């Protein structure tokens, strides 16, 4: 008798009692750009807010370069809740960034290493110029000494020669330093090019995207379709 009464109550109350109540869920997920998620293993969405029936819902969230994160959220009827989450970078992306960093470092070294040699050669060139001038000056001094008929000039000349010898020593030391820098620069180039000749620009394959784009339900105006995603790396 009680069961019959319950059935009658349900029938008379009708849809007003059993119409599913909904709640709103705002996706406060980092990153916001490119965020996609699949609700309850079926509905693939991209919007910032979703209205869902009250109850526990499963979410698979993904964004480019990020890992797919599965979580469950209890949606409360007639309330707006926030799903706050930060998607971690995928391991592939972290490895890609690491490889890319190494590649960029290597490329930077390949670009910068000639600067050491160029700097050394410029330094050497300038030093050769200075050395040549100092040498010419001393040659002039020697000629002036041999041709001078003025004792006072000869005395001054000998004092000047001391200074010109000092200039010559400085120019020679500078030439040594420039040459050493050039040799070091050449060595650096050889080393860097040898170490980086095998380096190829790494490419990022977002395996998490492949996982995420697995068979999902896409809601549409006609009810929706089942779809499967395939990623083809065209840059190769």
């Amino acid at each position: 008798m009680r069961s019959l009464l319950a059935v009658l109550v349900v029938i008379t109350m009708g849809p007003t009692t059993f119409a599913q109540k909904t709640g709103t869920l705002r996706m406060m997920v980092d990153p916001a750009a490119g965020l996609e998620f699949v609700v309850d293993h079926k509905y693939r969405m991209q919007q910032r807010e979703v209205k869902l029936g009250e109850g526990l819902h499963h979410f698979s969230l993904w964004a480019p370069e990020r890992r797919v994160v599965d979580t469950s959220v209890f949606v409360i009827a007639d309330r707006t809740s926030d799903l706050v989450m930060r998607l971690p970078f995928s391991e592939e992306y972290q490895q890609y960034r690491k490889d890319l960093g190494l590649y960029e470092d290597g490329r930077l070294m390949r670009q910068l290493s000639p600067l050491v040699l160029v700097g050394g050669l410029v330094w050497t060139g300038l030093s050769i110029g200075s050395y040549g001038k100092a040498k010419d000056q001393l040659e002039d001094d020697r000629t002036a000494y041999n041709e001078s008929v003025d004792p006072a000039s000869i005395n001054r000349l000998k004092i000047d020669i001391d200074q010109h010898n000092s200039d010559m020593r400085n120019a020679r030391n500078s030439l040594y330093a420039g040459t050493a820098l050039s040799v070091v620069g050449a060595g650096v180039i050889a080393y860097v090019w040898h170490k980086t000749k095998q380096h190829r620009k790494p490419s990022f394959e977002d395996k998490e995207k492949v996982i995420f784009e697995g068979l999902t339900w896409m809601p549409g105006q006609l009810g929706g379709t089942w779809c499967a995603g395939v990623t083809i790396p065209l840059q190769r």
Partner: protein
Amino acid sequence: MKFTKGAYVLFACLVALGACKKAEIDPEELTTNPFDKDYVGEAIFGFVSERTVSYQIDTTTFLKLEVDVQVNTALFPKPTNYIVQYELPSGQTLDVPLADLQDDVFTMTVLEVAPGIRYCFHPRLGNNGSYGSGNTICGTAE
């Protein structure tokens, strides 16, 4: 093979750099110019002759020694005018008049000499008001 070539190039560079030091001048080695006070070499002034001459002051007679000296102008770097100053045995210095240097021979005189005594002079070569090297010339009074 590349390493060997590189070693040769490096060695050649080091040899070339090592040769750079030869370009310097040691001022102490500059001693070939007779106008240089540090001149070392053939004598600039050469002894030509000497004579002892008597002279009188008031009623007293004295002797003076005159020594003729030749300037070795062949040592000059180039033909030029010059001046000469000489130091007497007493330490006093005298300038030789330019007129006396026309034939590159001049006379040095020391007064009040005693016979048999050797007197030495030190003429020095100069130009433009400054003096360089010289050498010692001696004569004996008779």
